[in-house]
């Protein structure tokens, strides 16, 4: 029989302070991460807000979001007034003041005008890549979730997906460059010298030439699509498997074919999940720089991607500006000064807001989905 008194503690329990200490230490480390992250955002917001927000209605600097990117000219006129004008306005100014002398002129590349070009380019790249990746990724996931049995082929597919997911983005850049830019086949009547292989098609001198798509929107989309394919496949397979087996059994038992079952009883229920996780993939695609550096992106471009094309499909083979590459250019290639800050912090803030909206959107959707879809 024990002495009941030992159940009552005298003073603090043993290890009380140690417990408190460990708990505090772990907790403070956790909150330290949050604080550092918040400080970082705060810094970008404080420095970037003047570029894209204004005190007047509509409180957003529309021009920064809708104007093309240009070189910034900073100069004084004869009266000593300082002007900061993007290249096009600068030329207008010169035309309007013929014979005027300007002083202390400085130019800053990529710092004038707005960032509509990079935004449009990123939107096109992301859209193209997501469409490709969703098409192939969901199809692959359907096979894995609905048809596949244990077989060497499936084992190899899973291994390939696992490995693809771990490949560094710069290696995807090398791959995209050597395959999509330099080696994929095109139909042309003037094969390039460096074509790997030319197969004549016997129609009007046309030939299938393995010479690549050059640095272009479609090469960039294809590279990005390859990169996120494993993400899409994994997420889609998960969504498909989340649909209860009973749905399939019931449908098959009523005489539906497997494809009918998938189309009517599986895909509709897994689609919300697939789309939610592809939002997350969009965030990743939009933010990647390394894979598009050599396959699609260009630092400066005078026109929007859709301008000056003889036929609409040419947009696929033109180079585009891209927001992440634009930020890289602004950070690495131009000196930091008071005149470039607007472009630098403004672009980063816009980009960060885009990413935040996308990722919090996907988080909210996911939470909603979990609450709604309870089988």
């Amino acid at each position: 029989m024990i002495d009941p008194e030992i159940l009552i503690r005298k003073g603090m329990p043993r290890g009380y302070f140690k417990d408190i200490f460990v708990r505090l230490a772990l907790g403070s480390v956790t909150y330290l991460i949050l604080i550092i992250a918040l400080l970082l955002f705060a810094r970008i917001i404080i420095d970037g807000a003047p570029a894209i927000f204004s005190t007047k209605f509509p409180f957003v600097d529309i021009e920064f979001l809708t104007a093309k990117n240009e070189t910034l000219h900073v100069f004084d006129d004869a009266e000593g007034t300082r002007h900061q004008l993007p290249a096009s306005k600068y030329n207008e100014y010169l035309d309007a003041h013929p014979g005027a002398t300007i002083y202390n002129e400085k130019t800053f590349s990529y710092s004038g005008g707005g960032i509509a070009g990079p935004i449009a380019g990123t939107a096109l790249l992301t859209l193209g890549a997501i469409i490709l990746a969703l098409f192939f990724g969901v199809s692959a996931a359907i096979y894995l979730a609905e048809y596949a049995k244990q077989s060497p082929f499936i084992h190899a597919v899973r291994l390939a997906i696992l490995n693809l997911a771990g490949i560094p983005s710069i290696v995807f850049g090398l791959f995209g460059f050597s395959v999509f830019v330099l080696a994929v086949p095109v139909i042309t009547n003037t094969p390039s010298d460096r074509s790997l292989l030319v197969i004549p098609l016997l129609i009007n001198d046309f030939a299938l030439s393995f010479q690549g798509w050059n640095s272009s929107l479609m090469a960039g989309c294809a590279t990005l699509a390859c990169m996120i394919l494993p993400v899409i496949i994994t997420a889609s397979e998960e969504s498909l498997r989340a649909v209860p087996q009973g749905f399939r059994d019931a449908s098959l038992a009523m005489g539906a074919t497997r494809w009918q079952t998938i189309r009517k009883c599986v895909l509709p229920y897994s689609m919300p999940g697939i789309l939610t996780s592809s939002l997350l993939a969009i965030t990743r695609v939009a933010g990647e720089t390394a894979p598009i550096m050599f396959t699609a992106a260009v630092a400066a471009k005078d026109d929007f991607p859709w301008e000056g094309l003889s036929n609409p499909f040419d947009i696929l083979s033109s180079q585009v500006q891209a927001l992440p590459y634009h930020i890289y250019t602004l950070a690495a290639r131009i000196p930091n000064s008071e005149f470039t800050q607007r472009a630098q912090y403004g672009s980063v803030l816009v980009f960060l807001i885009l990413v935040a909206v996308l990722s919090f959107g996907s988080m909210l959707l996911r939470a909603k989905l979990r609450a709604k879809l309870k089988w």
Partner: protein
Amino acid sequence: MASEKSSNAKTGHKFQRSGFSYEQLIRFFFASNAGLSIVILTLIIAFLLKEGLGFFPGYRRDLETYRIAGLEFVDISRNNLTAHEQLTSLLNRAYYAEVNGKSSRELKRTEEASALYNAFTDQVGPTRDLILNNPQAETDGNAGMKAALLNNYEKQREKALQKPLSTPHLTNEERQQLIESLRARPPEATDDPPLVAALAQEFVAAQQKHAAPLQEFRTVIDDFESAGFDLGSIVMEMTESVTVTKEQLQTADILEKDRKTLLAAASGEKDPVERERLLADAHAALADKPDVETPMQALLERKPECVRLHEELKTASSAAFDKIPQSLTESDAKRILSAARKAWPVFITDLDMAPGKINAWKHTDPVPLSDAFMSFLTGKKWVTGGEWQDFYGILPLAIGSLMIAMIALSIAIPVSISAAIYVNHFAKPREQALVKPIIEFIQAIPSVVLGFVGILVFGTILREISVMDAFQWVPGFPIEERLNIFTAGCLLALMSIPTIFSLAEDALNNVPSAYAEASEALGASHVQTAFRVMIPASFSGILAAILLGFGRVIGETMVVLLVAGNRIKIPDFSEGLGAFFQPSHTLTGIIAQELGEVPLGSVHYRALFVVGIVLFAVVLGINATAHHFVNRAKK
């Protein structure tokens, strides 16, 4: 499920034919899409190898040319000469550190006065230029404009003088005098204010005064420097001759390649006339073998001279080095001098080895393919686009990548695993709902944004901290470059924290709750349960999380490209931990930086693909190990 269906179909249902083939087609479509992953992975490997493998023969040929043309021979002397020059520069720096250190008061006074004056000129510069260079304002009719400009100038001047820079080493009278002279300064004045000029003279006088007792040191340095002149001139002569030979060899290589292309075209050509023409062209392209033997003999005849000059260099520089003052008084000078003393024995050993190397060197030694492999894997130099000789050694890049990863992981591992334990085991549900999405959002921040923050914010903050007196005990402080291994490591830590955190948290979550329950039922406290039961049980998963974080850090490109400083050099480990504050380049960064600028198919281009292969293999290896641990954790 699928097998049931198909076996049903085989039994001979009346819709068998059409249903079977249509379903089969759909099935085949999906299967081929699943196979796409395999195709992509195969293509990645195939094209990396296709572009990369040509590197080794190409690089071997480069190294062969390097030897046949005699560049390698010249480099033996050249490297020693470079070492000698570096020593000279160290001694010079020590000398000036001593002199300037002793005249530091005068130096500070002149610097402060000039800084104040320069800040003033910067502020009034634009308005001043307008007055001086505006032809419109000169004309008589524009008196009003001129007055306006002058008024502008005066406004700027007052603004500049409202808060002049602080000048702690100037007396109040001097400061007042300087400010007054600036205020009274007419816009067209060009000469320095009197005080600035006087202080500059004062400094020069002080320098001269303190240099006088160091006269002997000065002479020693000059002697030391001149010890290398003879070897320098002969290296210069040899350099010229071998460069000519090298160019001839390279031209011959190009012609030979053209000829092969022509011959290949001729063999494929069906029209006999055209074929004849191509063959003739090919024959014409058959270059005379460049004469490498004659210049080589001339070069080899210089062997005794080179040896002699090396010995002379050794005698002369040793004699000078012995006379260097034992110690200097200023701390900077002492530090630089001790660095020179540290480098000295290495230099002497190299000099001693040189004659042996020179005599043993033969231009006819073959260059096997393994030399190209070894030179790539163990080479300490990555030099490209130079006029002399390109080297593709991966070590500086690999070491840079590894050091950055070390910094990143040594920050990220403790932080993210502590956070994972806290969130999983201690946090209330409401806290979890706050912490998890924010950390998840950090993961979503594009790396280029982090790199941008590193360049414009973090690097600057780090440098400001590093010059503070309170932190001078940290090795490597004050840092020279704001973009360095440490800066990159910190940002990559921030990047890998979410990865490691969420995987480690998953691993902890997967520990059956029965473990925690049993532990607490035995009287264990929360902390005891966490450390004695939860962590050991999820150890494999946590290890996998760390490895996957490592893979992510090694493969990350944009942050290191922007923030690591991009200096292709193995950090100087003689500075101990200070080596982590030096700039560096990385495996990923080099590809991103150089691929856009190299000619397609060149050796340099292929070298970048080999770096890509190395990266691919390393990251895949790390991930495979990680998945091994994950699978073990599942069992």
